[in-house]
């Protein structure tokens, strides 16, 4: 009798363990965000000359934190199918660089903003939202991360800042471009954007 309960207990234990193998979405985002903050706050990397080292470190975290391919697919949505595989790969690469160019310096200029993790919303077995706020001296900005379970971990595929979805915003822009141009021309526009400045 006793053994049966032990067996049952073990069974439940293993079931729970396998259920939570990827951890909670909020915790995953929080762990990654903390790693970013650690790099930004690192006193050893305070010097302006350490900027490139910081960028390299952040890039490693970014790659783990974000599901770039998912981000790209959802940005292009139906237009994704107009690109062949080589073009898709290049698009993912270029899109990454566009985002890096746009946001790396913003992140590096971080000073003492506080990040508050409010809650997670489970959307489905493999999708969730993590709601956070960034608090600065003069304002408060709600930021929501959409995460997907991929490769055994929760990874970000959209960032929604003050209710405006990044993926949606770029989707509209790419839609507009692809309505008048070929995928190759879109890639050319992105190559130019990356090269500029």
């Amino acid at each position, binding site marked *: 009798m006793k053994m049966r309960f032990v067996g049952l207990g073990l069974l439940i234990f293993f079931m729970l363990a*396998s*259920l939570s*193998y*990827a951890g909670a979405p909020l915790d995953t985002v929080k762990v990654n965000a903390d790693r970013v903050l650690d790099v930004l706050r690192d006193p050893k990397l305070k010097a302006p000359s350490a900027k490139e080292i910081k960028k390299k470190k952040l890039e490693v975290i970014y790659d783990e934190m974000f599901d770039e*391919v*998912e981000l790209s*697919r*959802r940005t*292009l*949505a*139906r*237009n*994704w*199918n107009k690109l062949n*595989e080589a073009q*898709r*790969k290049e698009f993912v690469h270029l899109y990454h660089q*566009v*985002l890096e*160019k*746009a*946001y790396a310096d*913003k992140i590096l200029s971080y000073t003492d903003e*506080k990040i*508050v993790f*409010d*809650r997670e919303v489970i*959307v*489905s*077995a*493999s*999708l969730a939202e993590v709601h956070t706020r960034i*608090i600065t*001296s*003069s*304002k*408060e*900005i*709600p930021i929501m991360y959409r995460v997907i*379970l*991929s*490769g*055994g971990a929760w990874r970000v595929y959209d960032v929604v*800042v*003050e*209710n*405006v*979805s990044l993926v*949606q*915003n*770029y*989707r*509209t*822009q*790419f839609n*507009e*471009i692809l309505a008048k141009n070929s995928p190759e021309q879109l890639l050319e*526009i*992105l190559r130019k*954007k990356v090269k500029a400045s």
Partner: protein
Amino acid sequence: MVALLFTGCAHGPKAVSAPDPQAESLQIRLVSNAATPEPPDVNAPDEPSPYGDYTDEEESLDYPEEEAQVDVGKIADPIEPFNRAMYHFNDRLYFWVLKPVAEGYSKVVPEPARVSVSNFFSNLWTPVRLANCLLQLNPMGALTELFRFWVNTTIGVAGFFDPASSEEINLQAQDEDFGQTLGFYGVGQGFYIVWPVLGPSSPRDTLGRVGDYFTYPISYLDPWYVWTAVRGYEAINDTSLRIGDYEALKDAAIDPYVAMRDFYVQYRQKRVEARGTQPKPVSEKEAEGVRPTTPTGPMDRIFPLYRQEP
């Protein structure tokens, strides 16, 4: 609204008859996720390549909420040449006039003082928010605004401070205006308009601004140049608190005009959908000190004169 319903329907039936192998393997993946929650094997032969085709079914199966949002960023833009010209005009106005003036101003006036000025104006916007809470049948929102006004006008020293938003009192400003009220009653945006100086708008929100104008006490200042000067000062003060936001949007965009248009549409849509502003979730205690009354939205920040309610 019609467009949303339309896309909603367009997705439904497709999910049933999907001959696309991609969609099938996706379904299998979903089912297997639900049944045996084991880490998906990266090398599994039937795992679709991440570079595989995009299917609409994915959106509807995977993320029901987003189904209706597929075309959220869409708005008719029949007067695009005019709008683009106005966009460039506003862009110049910002970089040549507003930004330098706001930068000079912020060198003279420290940030906490500027936040207080922003709080003061925000307090004066109370009638607009209150009226629109009532029009949207949101009595709790209206009461929140009444109490906020009372707390901030007294303890908050004529609105220069915002104790009502503090964690203890937790009365958040209700982000409501007449454009949103029209949206609440089912009036669509119509099409996109960029006004010189005022920025992105639509017929609905233009009409809304007229309503806001008549409800904002500052509009009744006499003579007209006093009103203009006060509104101008309000705009400069606001701009000084958000220098860099418009630049960020512009730098990140592939086509800044389209990025701004989508921003505007997404932002207004969500504000219509969200009735009022929820109290803050209880979290770790926040830093003491002055904070702005409302989390000012991106449009408010990006378009200085856009400010419908601070």
